[in-house]
């Protein structure tokens, strides 16, 4: 290594006086502090306080030995932005910190994050299980596209624990659920599911997109991996597509022996075993060095930057999202044209107790309601709004409305739609940050037109 290389690479280990030092908690600092500071400090070269956008494809090596060390995973650093990028890394670390995880991997989208999550776990011909109450796009990905990789998904009612035990006993290597299910006000009882997956030597993977780590932290309930669509509340302004998979660092791949992708020799890295070499970092190193390398669904640095900006206000936004959603849901429940409202913050919700347990700060801001008049009435409500935007997204600062049966969930069968809470009369709302009285006036007008 050259003299310059040593000078540059040897930045002194200075902790900035973090006296507590618990590895998992960011030195015991609070959530709001970590949503602003975790993952990046002032740039050591320039002093830039806001995170630089590293808009580069590749990174210069110091010399041939440095390049070899990077390619062999013997040292930390950047090679090529498909595998890693400093701006994306700042976001990854921040999300990992907020979830209380060991590490995170950014992805081009939430769907890409889901592929990345399963990629090290499931070999061709193997199975995993997923809740039958999932975002329709996930159902389609698992049931239509994953079989092309010979990954087989069994959908299961996760409120029926004996059914969950049965599917795990049949060899499912992971169980995939949403903490707060899209579209409709369903809270998943994570703790007993984590007990079942742990007993079966399988992983619990939780999509925490709609709850965000501000409302729910699945690792505290025994989850092993978390996936996010960062497109939603984490970025918060409807600007970018992105995703992340977060590892708890708690699954012992070496002891399990069921996951040779992480514990067995990796031919493309000279027989290196990720779990042996990287310990509890194995999943995160693997998902960059193998997952992103070969799947290529990497997050763009500009998208990471916009998501970092969004995260700085996550707690503030989620408080208002939840408060507005509670007011709108209660108002809808009293409206004569509304047959039901599925929001876990309502007294009428069967999920109210689970919401109080898993997301005590609020039940999120995405929920569904039923319009009297069915499919056609649902479409008319959506089309009559002036303030709610008719589009296929959630978690924007703007309030959003959609009729799932005719849009996001239209690829599903009638039974799948019913299980997913996306029947013909269902309208989904994503309540934004506007003045709540204005939102109610807009819905009142739209319902009158239905």
């Amino acid at each position, binding site marked *: *290594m050259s003299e310059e290389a040593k000078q540059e690479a040897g*930045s002194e280990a200075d902790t900035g006086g*973090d006296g507590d030092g618990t590895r998992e908690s960011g030195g015991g600092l609070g959530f709001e502090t970590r949503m602003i500071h975790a993952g990046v*400090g*002032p740039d050591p070269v320039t002093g830039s306080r806001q995170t630089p956008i590293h808009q580069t494809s590749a990174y210069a090596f110091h010399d041939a030995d440095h390049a070899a060390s990077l390619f062999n995973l013997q*040292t930390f650093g*950047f090679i090529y932005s498909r595998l890693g990028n400093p701006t994306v890394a700042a976001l990854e670390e921040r999300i990992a910190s907020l979830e209380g995880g060991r590490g995170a991997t950014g992805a081009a989208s939430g769907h890409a994050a889901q592929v990345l999550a399963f990629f090290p776990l499931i070999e061709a011909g193997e199975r995993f299980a997923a809740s039958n109450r999932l975002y329709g796009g996930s159902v389609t990905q698992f049931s239509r596209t994953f079989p092309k990789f010979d990954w087989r998904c069994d959908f299961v009612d996760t409120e029926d624990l004996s059914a969950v035990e049965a599917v795990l006993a049949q060899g499912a290597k992971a169980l995939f659920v949403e903490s707060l299910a899209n579209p409709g006000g369903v809270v998943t009882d994570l703790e007993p599911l984590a007990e079942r997956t742990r007993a079966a030597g399988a992983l619990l993977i939780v999509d925490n997109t709609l709850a965000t780590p501000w409302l729910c932290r699945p690792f505290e309930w025994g989850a092993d991996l978390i996936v996010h669509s960062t497109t939603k509340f984490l970025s918060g302004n409807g600007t970018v597509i992105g995703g992340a998979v977060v590892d708890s660092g708690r699954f012992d791949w070496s002891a399990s022996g069921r996951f040779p992708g992480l514990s067995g020799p990796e031919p493309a890295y000279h027989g290196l075993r990720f779990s042996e070499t990287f310990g509890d970092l194995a999943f995160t190193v693997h998902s960059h060095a193998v997952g992103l390398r070969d799947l290529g669904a990497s997050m763009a640095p500009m998208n990471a930057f916009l998501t970092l900006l969004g995260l700085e206000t996550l707690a503030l936004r989620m408080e208002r999202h939840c408060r507005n959603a509670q007011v709108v849901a209660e108002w809808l429940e009293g409206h004569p044209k509304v047959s039901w409202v599925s929001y876990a913050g309502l007294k009428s919700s069967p999920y109210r107790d689970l919401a109080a347990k898993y997301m005590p700060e609020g039940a999120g801001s995405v929920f569904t309601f039923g319009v009297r008049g069915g499919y056609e009435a649902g479409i008319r409500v959506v089309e009559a709004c002036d303030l709610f935007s008719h589009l296929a997204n959630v978690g924007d600062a703007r309030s959003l409305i959609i009729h799932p049966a005719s849009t996001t969930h239209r690829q599903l069968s009638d039974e799948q739609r019913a299980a997913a809470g996306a029947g013909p009369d269902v309208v989904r709302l994503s309540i934004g940050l506007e003045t709540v009285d204005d939102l109610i006036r807009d819905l009142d007008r739209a319902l009158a037109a239905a």
Partner: protein
Amino acid sequence: MASALHYSDALIAGVLRRVRTIAMVGASPNWKRPSNFAMKYLQGKGYRVIPVNPRAAAGGVSILGEKACASLDEAPAPVDMVDVFRGSGAALGIVREAIRLREEKRIQVVWMQLGVRNDEAAAEAAAAGLTVIMDRCPKIEYGRLSGELGWGGVNSGVISSRRQRLAPAPGRGRQR
């Protein structure tokens, strides 16, 4: 299973700052082994790493430019830190040797690698006045505290508004 180990960042950073020479017991000449990874990385950060590996020493093998020693006894003084890259069962014997040699070699720290934990060895070393760290990797900890680990999306737990200085690597520089 005993309770989880917690070491303050200040303790670990202090060790990594103070130490210059590391005797790595169990360092492998095979470049694909984790010990070889860690040794190469630490050399790159300016530490002198002396490999202790009886088989390599018997064959007259050098590892990453350093002649392998058959035992801790043979390592040239000073040895600031003994890094145990062997299983938990072997740790007690190695640590007792480090305690025996602590004045002769000026040993200050006994560090047991990620996955290596021996509470009896730790208690004896602490009683002998040595700083003890177990179940951690000095490469990962250096990377974590310097910010390099975060480059891979890892949660370093380090949060600071201070601008880091691009200081030269600690120690005497790499011996080649």
